């Protein structure tokens, strides 16, 4: 589904951090994981993915490292840092409160059936 870009803008970093919190991944892997684990609801454009990863790296929320894959090819793996975990926890908490608030506004319409 194509969402309004402003709507996605705020949650893309927390989604990436959440997925990386479960294990390190390289760019392609990460974009596939976002689709799969969101039930193909969320997709992150490739033009957004890499700039996002570099920005998270600049903020020290993730760190990147070149490693050999199982097939022997080299990929840049990204893993969440301690700071990233803290930031993730904080943003998840905020999202929960946001969801609860929106549910009240929309009369429970946001809660999945």
């Amino acid at each position: 589904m194509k969402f309004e870009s402003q709507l996605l803008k705020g949650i893309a970093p927390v989604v990436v951090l959440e997925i990386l919190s479960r294990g390190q991944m390289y760019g392609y892997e990460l974009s596939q994981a976002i689709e799969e684990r969101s039930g193909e609801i969320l997709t992150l454009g490739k033009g957004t993915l890499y700039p996002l990863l570099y920005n998270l790296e600049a903020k020290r929320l993730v760190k990147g490292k070149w490693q050999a894959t199982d097939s022997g090819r080299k990929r840049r793996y990204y893993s969440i840092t301690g700071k990233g975990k803290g930031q993730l926890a904080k943003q998840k908490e905020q999202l929960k409160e946001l969801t609860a608030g929106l549910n009240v506004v929309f009369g429970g319409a946001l809660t999945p059936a």
Partner: protein
Amino acid sequence: MAKKLAYMHSENLPECAIDFIKLVIRQMRYRKKVRAEVMAELAAHFEDELKDCKSDEEKERKAKELIADFGDVKLLGVLLRRAKKRCRPLWRTMVARTFQTVGILILLLIVYIGWFLMGEPVISVDYLAQLNQMVQPAVDESLNAAPLYEKAVQLYGKCSDDFLLFFAENYKEIGDPLVGGRFRREGRLRAEELADDIRQLLSTKQETDLAEKTRLQIESEVGTTASVLLTRRYQETSTIERKFIKKWIEDQKEALDLVVAGTQKPYYWQKYGSKQNTSEMMSILLPELANFKRLAYSLLRRARFGAEQGRYEDAFSDMKSCYRLGQHIKGDNTFVIEQLVGMAIEALATQRLRDILSEYEIDSIVLTKLQNEFEQIVAEEDFAMSFQAERLSIYDVIQRCFTEDRIGGGHLCLEEFKRLRALVADYDSYSFLEEIIEERAWTAPLRVLFTHPNKHETFRAAEELYDYWESLNLKSPARIRTEGIDIDKDTMEIIEGNILLDVFATNFGRAIEMSYQIKAEVQAIVTIMGLLRHKNDKGFYPQSLRELTGEGYISELPMDPWTDKPLVYKKTDESFTLYSVGRNFEDDGGEVVRDYDGQPEMWGGEGDVVFWPVPEFEVKR
């Protein structure tokens, strides 16, 4: 980077993917290493996306879809660069910012230098007109002695045939023209040639232009010999030389009579003008000061000859005229150089007067008349220096060397500064100024740019400097010493860092001293006349100078500027001693200071300045 490119090709990525990645990397415009990493990452992503494609067409299609998903190349490049820049370590960011800051500063410096080099001075005040207004009294031109002096200068130097012939016949006994030391031989040879030229000129009696030119040349050279002899002490001249000088003075009668007539005028002023007829003060043409001095020497020698022949009244008349000439040249608000020449002439007159009073017995009637007339001449004289002309000059230099006022207050124009500096004689440079003027160091103008005071500040400093000289003018050397005034230190503090003032502003400490010297000379000669009269009248000299004032021989005690007390007077068995303690401020008992050649020094030495008895000169021939 080449390796990464080769890698992309080796993984069989479609051309469109390779081209896309290359475009994105080019758009990034960042460090090579970072771009190589991003290129590898993007290539790996394409590789992963396309790994399950079974054919080249499928690869191509999927690659194009992926390219579309990546979005605009330019935007992607920008986003990647921004993100990667945020990744760089703090030290790298600081280095980059430092370079940017330095770059901006260099740009500003270039703009500032451009601004500095542009802009021209604007001449808004005619200081030359102000000066002329200042020196000219509100009286009729007929009361001005200047035209008479100018005529005298034009006539001075004309020689009769008789005089030239005398030189040609006696040149061997006459002192060499313009000589001393190693030029003696050349001077002697030239004198011989001159004698031949004279004989030829007088024998042919031609009236051609060439003959006229030759005559002028001869008169000039013979006249130089006369001028040199005139400056020597009378005792140092031989009988032939005295005859030579006597003939010379006879030939100059018309010029000297014009000078005497000029000294009868109540005023002397001249209209200052410049060579190029501009209002530029530095180009002002000063009057013929050197010729005035020659006229003065001639008058004094004429006085000496008069005294020799017992014509004391004529002798004293010439001496008074000489003193008056000095007074005129000093003038009111003239340039310091004119005042110094005027004072030098006055000093010559008083010194030669002392010589005559010392050598000849003058009766009381003549002495009294002389003293009264001399006192009348000096009665209204202001011995203090004036720096008004120099003040206006420096103001004019400032307005010609600084740009018009603008943000920053007007800055120094090096080109104008160099031009005006070339007009200043007797310039004493130091290395920093040499760098500025001679452009030996390109950094020197930069130092001027950032450290030199602006126009307002320079004006203020100039005002402060000349106010300082005016205040110092009123203090005798004794008072300056008592107050612990350090003139060099004070003036350096005022002009510190200002190269314009350092070049163009003069230290007037010595000039101010000289004005006090001449005052002491004048008071001394009046006192001497009073003492001689006392002796003539009563047969003895008084015990103290107070007796002279008490009995009306002098109206006031002569003051010593080096003690601020009266000159030292000591009665001796047959005569008296009258002296100033001099520039060392110490009373050496009236001992005459002598130079290396044993000749008495007056004010130039460090010791007592003895007015009486007149120190003897050792005749050297």
